[in-house]
């Protein structure tokens, strides 16, 4: 039997390949689970969007497209820096790995902070779902006549969907801190990089969720912006 004397291999695995392949498959299955988790929200979103198209367009226009767009760029760049980190881990470039993860963490936190200010703006305008919800239109009479209750329904979904996404970002930031601490102690090397690679999977997944959330929530009907 091919017994692994290498301490990198846990006792119940035969060799490092079996261990790594198991970890990768496990991560894919976890992400499949995540897709279905967000899938429930997406289903609810589409049901109501088809039911209330006008309210959806009007409510979407209340979101800050500039902050949302900025955050989209932030996340896409962070995906790039994470990919660089994974590559650095695989090739054993310690300094590049640490820099890459540090920048990724900074970008992730930037996203969360910007999101916080977006939420705060909605809070200040009373557009928080619940008994005190008020709809202040900032689009003039372009969307006149929409039902404010349905606007509130949109914001229910907006807060749950982006909140769930932000929660994943915060968990990701925590994991990154842990990986940075491990890296600082010299944990990673060209034969020991699975933790970074698997975290990369997770980080890209959270980014991709945002790539769907951004157009679905912010870009439903922006034609009023062109009418000066």
């Amino acid at each position, binding site marked *: *039997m091919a017994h692994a004397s290498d301490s990198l291999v846990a*006792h*119940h*695995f035969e060799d490092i390949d*079996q261990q790594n*392949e*198991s970890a990768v*498959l*496990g991560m894919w*299955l*976890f992400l*499949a*689970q*995540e897709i*279905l*988790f*967000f*899938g*429930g*929200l997406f*289903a*609810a979103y589409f*049901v*109501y969007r088809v*039911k*209330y198209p006008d*309210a959806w367009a009007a409510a979407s226009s209340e979101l800050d497209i500039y902050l949302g767009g900025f955050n989209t760029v932030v996340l896409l760049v962070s995906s790039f820096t994470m990919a660089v980190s994974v590559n650095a881990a695989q090739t054993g470039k310690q300094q590049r790995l640490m820099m890459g993860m540090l920048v990724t963490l900074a970008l992730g936190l930037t996203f969360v902070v910007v999101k916080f200010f977006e939420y705060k703006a909605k809070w200040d305008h009373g557009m928080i*779902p*619940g*008994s005190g919800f008020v709809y202040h239109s900032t689009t003039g009479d372009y969307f006149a006549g929409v*039902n404010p*209750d*349905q606007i*509130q*329904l949109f914001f*229910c*979904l907006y*807060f*749950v969907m982006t909140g*769930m996404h932000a929660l994943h970002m915060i968990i990701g930031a925590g994991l990154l801190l842990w990986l940075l601490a491990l890296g600082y102690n010299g944990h990673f090397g060209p034969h020991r990089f699975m933790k970074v690679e698997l975290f990369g999977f997770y980080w890209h997944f959270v980014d991709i969720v945002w790539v769907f959330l951004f157009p679905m929530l912010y870009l439903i009907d922006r034609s009023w912006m062109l009418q000066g």
Partner: protein
Amino acid sequence: MHTIAEAQRSAVFPEVNYLSARHTVASWLFTVDHKRIAMLYLVTISIMFALGGSFAALIRLELLTPAGDLLDSDTYNKVFTLHGVIMIFFFLIPSVPATIGNFLIPLMIGCKDLAFPRINLLSYYLYLLGATFAIIVLVRGGVDTGWTFYTPYSSTYAQTEVFYATMAAFAAGFSSILTGLNFIVTIHKMRAPGMSWFRMPLFVWAHYATSLIQILGTPVVAITLVLLATERIWGVGIFNPNIGGDPVLFQHLFWFYSHPAVYVMILPGMGVISEVITCFSRKRIFGYTFVAFSSLAIAVIGFLVWGHHMYVSGQSVFAGIVFSFITFLVAVPSAIKVFNWTATLYKGEITFEAPMIYAFGFMGLFLVGGLTGILLGSMGADVHFHDTYFVVAHFHYVMVGGMVMAFMCGLHFWWPKMTGRMYNETLGQISGILVFVGFNLTFMPQFLVGYLGMPRRYHVYSEEWQMLNVMSTLGATILGLGYILPAIYFPWSLFKGAPAGDNPWDAKGLEWETTSPPPTFNFDEENMPVVTEEAYAYVIERNTLGAR
């Protein structure tokens, strides 16, 4: 002829095994050994089963008389809700996979542990967290929405502990997801040399299919419960009709998981039956590949039938027709299994040890449960049967007559492997018969009373239905005795049972090639198993077929 006595004559209890490895409490609570985690689960779910069962006893006592004399209606609502929540989320879902499956899958495919031992332990603690939430619900006064948490009972009009109940189901759900994830990776990546996909025991196939449902279905109910909880706490009314939300959307999202979940509650049981039937009729399974693929077919088709819970919810007739048709389709792979087990028995050398009695009980009761399911899957008939005791009887035939029978069957079959001790065979047979008789007496009258129109979830009923309800309560008493017996003789066997030996049933499969109980890493580490034959290579020891 094989006899149990023969196999046991020379049996000695192995000195080195996973139970004796270490004795401290911490060595159990922080173990990453799949066998020990399975035992932790077994103890915990048995406690939850007893708790859920005591609520069932209260229900049957109340229904002994037409008047509401034992419980008032609010209390009754809480009692049947807690019965459902505890039995479904804390017993049926984890029953076979988390205990017997957890114990056996690495043994059956010839590896040392599940792929992620620590995640396995995490899944146990998530289950325990969920169970703790369930206890909190109980202490704080219960929940009365029914186990389905339908909005707006659970949102606008709820006065009870809906939030903690959703958290209980949420935590138990993630425990279930992690178990499924662990199984799939283990089955893909950890099989012993020679253990090809089509040499795997059907128990493993059944768990593979179950795991798919756990991973792809459970997260949907998890997010749905999160939405419900946010509606309760912050008034974020996704299902609130006052702001245009749709309560029926909750039903769709809920049943998208909860219908496939009933296959989580039956597929592992079917896996158990395939193992036991072959062993005690000394035959190869009839149509191995059909049985294997029927598990996958049930898992896949099971995702497309949730609307048959909603024929009277206002769902469109067209949607109803489609769901009804697909519901009939899912009966096909289920029937394939029953036909194949029956064909396996044909000309077998059948013996009636306790596990086999439970297996026969499963086949009969699952058949009734399945066939009445077809009635309920028909749109027109369902309008009549909806929310009557007919439905209650149907799903108890599948869940209790099916899964609980299979769980008991598997527990008796593998108890010698798990503990290294034999239980009292006579008592085992008696309990199997008691459960079968008691079960039928409990639930057969409910088909009748449901057909006559008695609605479920009420604590008072018309006097003409009393006879049938008295029969049902009497049956439940016998059923309870049938479950109490094993609760006595299993623990007793731990101390006084005869050593089982490696293979007391003379059964096939890798799990029987190691000691009972197995060592911590399952097999002799210098001599890990290599598989050279197909599953169930049983041979009937007689000269000519059909000589008897």
